[in-house]
């Protein structure tokens, strides 16, 4: 099973919903791999944007993502091009990831029987 995150952490509820799917899958003894594409790579940054109106840090997916290894989910792929385009270094990310080139991403999706994205 492969879950593809394509959205920035505060871009609607999609990142959160897909993360919930991962947690539910883990409860049913499935350990999906996760692939971060495009703006989805921003989910792997730990820094949060302070909401200047409320003075609180909004609840995002970033903290919960780092708990996934405790749920036995520990395969994380990242689109290398997306990372480059945003000038992010792999070691700035909150989880140990495998970088994939576009060709490898196509191969991964082709080889996976269940792919979920929102």
């Amino acid at each position, binding site marked *: 099973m492969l879950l593809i995150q394509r959205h920035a952490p505060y871009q609607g509820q999609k990142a959160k919903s897909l993360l*919930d799917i991962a947690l*539910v899958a*883990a409860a049913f003894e499935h350990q999906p791999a996760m692939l971060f594409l495009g703006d989805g790579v921003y989910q792997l940054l730990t820094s949060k944007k302070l909401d200047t109106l409320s003075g609180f840090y909004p609840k995002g997916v970033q903290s919960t993502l780092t*708990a996934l290894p*405790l749920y036995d989910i520990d395969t994380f792929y990242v689109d290398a091009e997306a990372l480059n385009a945003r000038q992010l270094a792999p070691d700035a990310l909150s989880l140990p990831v495998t970088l994939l080139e576009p060709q490898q991403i196509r191969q991964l999706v082709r080889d996976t029987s269940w792919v979920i994205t929102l």
Partner: protein
Amino acid sequence: MKVLHAYAWNIPKWSLGFKAMTKADSTSSPPVLSSIIEPHLDPEGYLLDLSLWNEAIAHQLAQRENIQLTSKHMQILHLARKFQQAYEVSPATRPLAKYIQIHLSPEVSASIYLMQLFGGEAPAKRVCRLAGLPKPTNCL
């Protein structure tokens, strides 16, 4: 519900009516103000206002479930709260067990330890309830 004995409040004992207890009746948990106020709970027994939580409330919640909390229980409750603070999600049983294993006891099986302390079925639910955390959504 426990009621403080009247002279702790400097008010006449009769004013508490039939609910007044004698000193001999009071149990081991510390006589603090919160122990005479029933906290508001949802139908499943979780605190409605999570910010109210403290150790005295935990003792009180445990009493409702006929558990006597020891320091070992309390250690787990605090760990569960730490988990929730770090990851912004209430722990399900397996991740909580892993977390305990990492932070407390690499050598013993944390899931068996959890079940011994908090009962067999879905111990994480009870842990979250007593620790003043939201119900774990993905816990079976």
